[in-house]
């Protein structure tokens, strides 16, 4: 299970680490662990000098005793340099053995030497199978973990190997564990960024999270006149203009009340006493809802079918109705006219642009009317 996670990624790295390892050891800086590397490398060298499959267990038995003795020698891990094999001559595969070795060596310390022997025996079998290196490593680590956990239960090595082998593929070794080590995201970028740190230092993962809303909402900005803070609405959550209007009321009711009369808002015990924002769609209320479509045109909300509105709207605004007065009539007229003209030929698609074309086809009279409307709209400077 969890053992799979361990060092899953290391295999490719290890293959490259041999020269580094050597430097690592030569520097002599650091803890005892590094000295282990030296001795383990040498032990491995002893093994690698040996032939293939069937002789392996016997040979391992011999070398293992040798290495166990040395390991058990009190306090110190350094083998006498009797092997004489130059570390650099060993190939990439040894790197793989190295870490495995460090674990298996470690477990031998628990004086379960027989089981340890069985470990190596099983490892030998795996190696001779020449399976995917990563799988080997994982399965060996599984056994190693299982061994330490079992603490002396002498499970049959072949059983171990088989069981481990079958389940060693459960985790793709390339997936790093989420949230491990447990440092906050703004600390994770330290190693990779040099000065100056990116602005994303506050959370490399956050931008992805920000956009992720189950991926299914259609969030749209909505601003209200007089309130500096905008909100967002999810158009997919509603299926009619009435519901949208109610939602807008909910979003801004509190803010509007707070802005108008801070103390009154504070003293109210009953939140329902705040004035509701009504009449957004019919032009009767204090505020009117307008939207900007994907071609940049500003339009009143409510005139086109809901689905069309959802697909074309890009931003919403809640404007004071008085500011809309002149041009609202114009705009309303334009939209209504366009809608009418659009609907009459029975076409589909974008209403305004199509209807503009329709208008042009139908003749200059309507075209003039449209021009006049646009002129008035810009003059009214509603938007």
């Amino acid at each position, binding site marked *: 299970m*969890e*053992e799979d996670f361990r060092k899953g990624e290391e295999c490719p790295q290890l293959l490259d680490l041999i020269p580094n390892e050597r430097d690592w050891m030569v520097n002599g800086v650091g803890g005892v662990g590094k000295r*282990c590397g030296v001795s383990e490398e040498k032990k491995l060298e002893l093994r690698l000098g040996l032939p293939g499959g069937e002789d392996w267990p016997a040979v391992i038995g011999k070398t293992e005793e040798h290495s166990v003795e040395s390991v058990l020698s009190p306090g110190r891990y350094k083998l006498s340099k009797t092997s004489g094999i130059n570390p650099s001559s060993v190939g990439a595969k040894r790197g793989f053995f190295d870490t495995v070795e460090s674990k298996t060596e470690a*477990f031998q310390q628990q004086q379960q030497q027989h089981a340890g022997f069985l470990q190596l025996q099983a490892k030998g079998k795996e190696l001779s199978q020449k399976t995917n290196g990563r799988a080997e490593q994982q399965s060996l680590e599984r056994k190693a973990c299982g061994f330490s956990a079992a603490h002396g239960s002498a499970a049959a090595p072949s059983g171990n190997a088989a069981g481990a082998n079958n389940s060693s593929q459960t985790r793709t070794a390339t997936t790093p564990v989420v949230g491990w080590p447990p440092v906050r995201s703004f600390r994770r970028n*330290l190693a990779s960024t040099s000065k100056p740190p990116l602005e994303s230092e506050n959370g490399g993962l956050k931008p992805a999270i920000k956009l992720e809303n*189950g991926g299914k909402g259609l969030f749209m900005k909505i601003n209200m006149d007089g309130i500096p803070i905008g909100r967002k609405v999810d158009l997919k959550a509603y299926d009619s203009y009435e519901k949208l209007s109610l939602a807008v009321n909910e979003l801004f009711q509190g803010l509007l009340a707070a802005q108008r009369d801070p103390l009154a808002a*504070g003293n109210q*015990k009953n939140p329902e006493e705040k004035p509701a924002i009504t009449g957004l769609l019919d032009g009767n209320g204090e505020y009117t809802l307008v939207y900007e479509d994907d071609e940049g045109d500003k339009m009143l909300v409510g005139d086109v079918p809901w689905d069309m509105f959802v697909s074309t709207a890009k931003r919403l605004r809640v404007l004071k109705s008085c500011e809309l007065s002149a041009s609202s009539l114009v705009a309303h007229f334009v939209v209504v006219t366009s809608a009418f003209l659009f609907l009459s030929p029975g076409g589909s698609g974008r209403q305004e642009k199509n209807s503009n074309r329709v208008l042009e086809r139908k003749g200059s009279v309507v075209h003039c009317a449209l021009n006049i409307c646009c002129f008035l709209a810009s003059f009214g400077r509603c938007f």
Partner: protein
Amino acid sequence: MAEDEDGGRGGAGCGDGAGDGDGGADAPPPFSDRVLENVLENVLQFLSSPRDRNAASLVCRSWYRAEAQTRRELFIGNCYAVSPRRATERFRRIRAVVLKGKPRFADFNLVPNNWGAHFHPWVSAMAAAYPWLEKLCLKRISVADSDLFLLAHSFPNFKELSLICCEGFGTAGLAAIAEKCRHLRVLDLIEDYVEDEEDETMDWISRFPETTTSLESLGFDCVGSAVNFEALEALVARSPALWRLRVNHHVSVEQLRRLMARAPQLTHLGTGSFGSAAAAAPLLQGGGSSVVDLAWTFAASKSLVCLSGFRDVEPHYLPAIYPVCDNLTSLNFSFAEIAAEELKPVIRRCHNLQNFLVLDTVGDEGLQAVAATCKDLRELKVFPLDAREDSEGSVSDVGLIAISEGCRKLRSILYFCQQMTNSAVITMSQNCQDLMVFRLCIMGLHRPDHRTGEPMDEGFGAIVRNCKKLRRLAVSGLLTDKAFAYIGEYGKLVRTLSVAFAGNSDLGLRYVLEGCNKLQKLEIRDSPFGDSALLSGLHHYYNMRFVWMSSCKLSSRGCKEVAQMLPRLVVEVIRDRDEDHDNEAVSKLYMYRSLAGSRNDAPSFVEIL
């Protein structure tokens, strides 16, 4: 902050009629009792600890009422444990609120976005109920700009805002606070994610009142966008009460000097980048004169006791802080990639240091230098530069032993390393008997003692056995059930336990749940604990703030059983990844006691059993 029970708990006791000493029923108390209540209120107002107040409120109804009238600070450890309405109805005169939301593992991306902990219902309720609210501290809460706007407009006497590990707001919200909260004393943004959309960054610093402000503490080191420096400098100049200033990494060392010149009274300084502005860099060949100037500036800031920042530190500027080192009690180098050689001359001068945060780039050698000088050290945090499970570790057991030998008064340690030995941990347990917080993170998964090959059981066992004041423990490395047996047996004061990739079987969790009777917060990930272990804690879950278990071996059958047996426990199953949609296995479990029942704002990927 003390991990105290929230106010709701006392309410639970009285709500069930547990206390009834004055013989009255629902009629208003007779005159003599009202006098008594007045007297009582006058006495109770001196009680400040929430625990004491909770206890007092359980004595009888009279005391319950008196306590509710006199409580000024409300502490809500889990925003879903009680509804805003219930809290505001019971406590009518609150001036300060502390509110905590998401579980801590949310910091490590284990809790999906939109999970909850929204500020909106709380700010709406408080806007109506507490018009005289002065202080607010939020931790791991989702705060929107509109919430900050409402806050700014609803509390005319608002003074202190601290946001810790929050997200969802941007500079627009900050602008609203700056502009409307005319009595603001504290604005502390600590490790928040402050995001702005596209190009909508606002110049919020310019929104502070033009007149002399009452600002005492301003911290924005987590804000990703640059602030208007001239406005900041002017703000600091007209804030004579300012004693804490933490700027973000966009502030260069030249700008820092100007700020420090305006505010020589500062005691806590977040230094921003501590590197030179790029344009000025070519002029500072060798940086000699500028370091001297900077040192003079520091020399003039005689009150400094806490330094942080150093986000892009250029090591040749470090000597500038020598003049204040001797006075420093707190030093945060956790963003400074410096080696031991660069640390030593600084740390050698910091004899009075009590809190030290550093990156592991200083290595064991750096830690030895710390141990040699900082005899008064109380808190140490060593963060990894390269936070991966297979990175090269720079600190090891050697550093830990050195610290334990040099810093005997250590109370709290957070230590990231690649590998560790039992003997080092045992040594620390013997040397540092005052330890209250021990968090060791061996980044390599399932790493045993690298010298003996044994699991790390004995090390952590020694910690719980020898450190008798231990309240918080985080374990790592290769651990068997034995480690948990130790924790259950000896960790009698442990309140917070974090477990990752540890244990062999259900026994491990059972030991903890049956043994640690002060346990309040339990967070476990990737450990083989299953239903039977979960069920062994039924006797204790009502005493806890929360339990988090992810990637363990739980099934929905076991979780449902817990939910049935404990009706006041909210049991949430979070299924946010595709592979979680297997109905039986539960990959993320979050459960907490609550008076409010199932919350109504749970997103679709949360199932409440």
